[in-house]
């Protein structure tokens, strides 16, 4: 097998793909909470994606990504047997895993993908796990089976009520708390806005909350500072100091504004990329 070769490609939902990539040295080293940076082709951008799973025996890592722009579109165009141009990792500080007791794992949309390896490691460390998985609509919910297999209890919400409860993940979390559930740690991964609201709620409940931040990155090694986030008023580089942080200390508005900085240019390159009609399948 060739380096960075796509060994398997699956459609998980409308815009979400799962790819297994041959990268033995990353598979060997990867720990929960870490990510890779890849380039699809020579003119392409470097983008970070979480390692959703790894198999060190087969030398394969799993990436799960949602098509949102040029690079993720181009990635979705690769076929089994094709190779990524570049792939580097594992990057970032691994999740601190220990036996916390009862952990609530909140995943929203594509955030369920980065949540999965963390939950897996927490399970192995003997924690009791309650999952709250949210999506806009039923067809966008990913990894339900895999998550259910790890969780002691799994609760699902969709914005439109097409599956599970109608509503958002914070509604479900509120109810868990109201029913008197003892919670030692909350981990929330999803869109920034979701993480922001989860943290606002858990701050009221005084529940320690871990989040994984997804700022724009370039090198992923602490060299450029593109990934600056503010944690408790201090500037941190998410690629080396994170990507996980204490959710109650995150400056969410800053993160969201920085994520929007290149929106106009991103639209231009997405439109150009879509003109390439290699097709997603």
């Amino acid at each position, binding site marked *: 097998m060739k380096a960075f070769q796509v060994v398997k490609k699956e459609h998980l939902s409308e815009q979400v793909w799962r790819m297994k990539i041959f990268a033995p*040295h*990353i598979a060997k*080293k990867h720990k929960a909470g870490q990510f890779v940076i890849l*380039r699809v082709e020579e*003119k*392409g*951008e*470097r983008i970070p994606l979480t390692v959703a799973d790894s198999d060190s025996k087969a030398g394969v890592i799993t990436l799960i990504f949602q098509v949102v722009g*040029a*690079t993720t579109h181009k990635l979705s165009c690769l076929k089994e047997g094709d190779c990524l*141009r*570049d*792939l*580097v*990792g*594992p*990057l970032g500080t691994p999740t601190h895993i220990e036996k916390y007791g009862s952990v609530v794992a909140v995943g929203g949309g594509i955030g369920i993908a980065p949540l999965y390896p963390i939950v897996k490691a927490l399970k192995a460390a003997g924690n009791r796990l309650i999952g709250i998985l949210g999506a806009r609509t039923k067809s966008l919910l990913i990894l339900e089976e895999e998550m259910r297999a790890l969780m002691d209890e799994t609760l699902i919400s969709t914005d439109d009520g097409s599956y599970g409860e109608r509503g958002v993940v914070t509604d479900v979390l509120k109810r868990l708390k109201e029913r008197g559930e003892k919670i030692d740690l909350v981990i929330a991964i999803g869109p920034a806005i979701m993480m922001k609201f989860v943290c606002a709620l858990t701050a009221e409940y005084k529940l320690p909350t871990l989040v994984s931040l997804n700022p724009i990155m*370039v*090198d992923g*090694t*602490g*060299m*450029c*500072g*593109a990934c*600056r*986030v*503010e944690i408790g008023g201090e*500037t941190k580089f998410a690629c*080396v100091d994170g990507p996980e942080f204490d959710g109650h200390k995150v400056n969410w*508005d*800053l993160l969201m*504004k*920085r994520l*929007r*900085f*290149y929106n106009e*240019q*991103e639209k*231009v*390159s997405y439109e*150009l*990329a879509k003109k390439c009609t290699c097709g997603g399948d």
Partner: protein
Amino acid sequence: MAKKIEPRVPMPEQSPKERIRNFNEVPYGYTPEMAKKEASRCLQCKKPKCVSGCPVEINIPSFIGLVKEGDFGGAIKKIKETNLLPAICGRVCPQETQCEEVCVLAKNGQPVAIGRLERFCADWERSLGEEKISLPKCAPPTGKKVAVVGAGPAGLTVASDLAKLGHKVTIFEALHKPGGVLVYGIPEFRLPKEIVFAEVRILQKLGVELITNYIVGKTETVDELLERYDAVFIGTGAGAPAFMRIPGENLGGIYSANEYLTRSNLMKAYLFPETDTPIHRGKVVAVIGGGNVAMDSARTALRLGAERVLLIYRRTREEMPARAEEVHHAEEEGVEFHFLTNPVRYHGDEKGNVKEMECLKMRLGEPDSSGRPRPVPIENSNFRLSVDTVIVAIGNLANPIVPKSTPNLTVNKNGNIVADEDGRTSREGVFAGGDIVTGAATVISAMGAGRRAARAIHSYIMEKSSR
């Protein structure tokens, strides 16, 4: 000196007006006639001062003599006896503080243009075609293996020297391209990237293996490398950007010079949307700092279409650490210099993007530890400048990934790896050199450190095996 001294032969270059609209190299280089003419200015001193000014001690009079005779092939051979990367050094060495500063003709303000001649010879050789470039002879294989971490000038030099001694060398590079700062930092208009890649290809022809996308400390640790290799050299550079830590510094549109230059150079954002990586094409760009990195950022911003580029420096022109030639080029291109000025906070718009920069006026005070007068803020001198992009170019620190992941590797208080003159660190079999040891310095000093370390590594691994 009875003979009247001719002035230096100027090097033709793109006019400022033309060049701020492209990323092509600014100088065109000498023609053979110009090179011969400039070479004939050299006095062929018996005790050449120039050589002592060159950190790798190129036999300058000798190569210049060959240029004068038109034996360019002989000249480049002579240079390459001690300098692996002449096309690069001829372009980016701060000659005015090294070889050319001590040339006897410098007294008249017109030293021999050693750098330009060096560059000419290297370009002449390259123009013959890559196949024609004669490869240095390598000693028979020793069976020893060395891992080099980082493909910047330090790492490339170590790799080349050890390969010539017959060792099997593997370079591990974090980024997807080799070259270090030469490729991600220094812009195309000062150093075409193809020159660096051509040098790397030659290294590969010598049998050096290059593995990109490999972060030592993450993908594999130094200790793990030591299980597979007889020695490890660390040349990871000074690649962590410093910020001022002032309010508003994380607003959109505020970049570290590293990010700005990496987007433009390594990711070729100046070709966007032909390439995918975006960069903000600001109209009014402020660059904070007074070194080469600041000049490179300012000149890049102009080429990306800025209407005004303001260079903000807290001391005066005299204290600016940038190369004279770069300051001159920046000025010609229209960069506006604001001396004795220091930003204290940034103000943003409703989208969270920078809109204004609040500055203080400064005056010069007593000298500080660097010997330069300390800039002292003038109270209540605050004023605001409207800007839509800011590039912070106030320095680079050591990247902590390798030290953090390598137990018992001693670093100093700045995070630089502690190593002796020959690159020996606190760990047996682990050597280091270049910016990771000295802090941000120069290409040629990193190469010099690489050369000394290669010698030390050679004796270390040969001794170890005879033990």
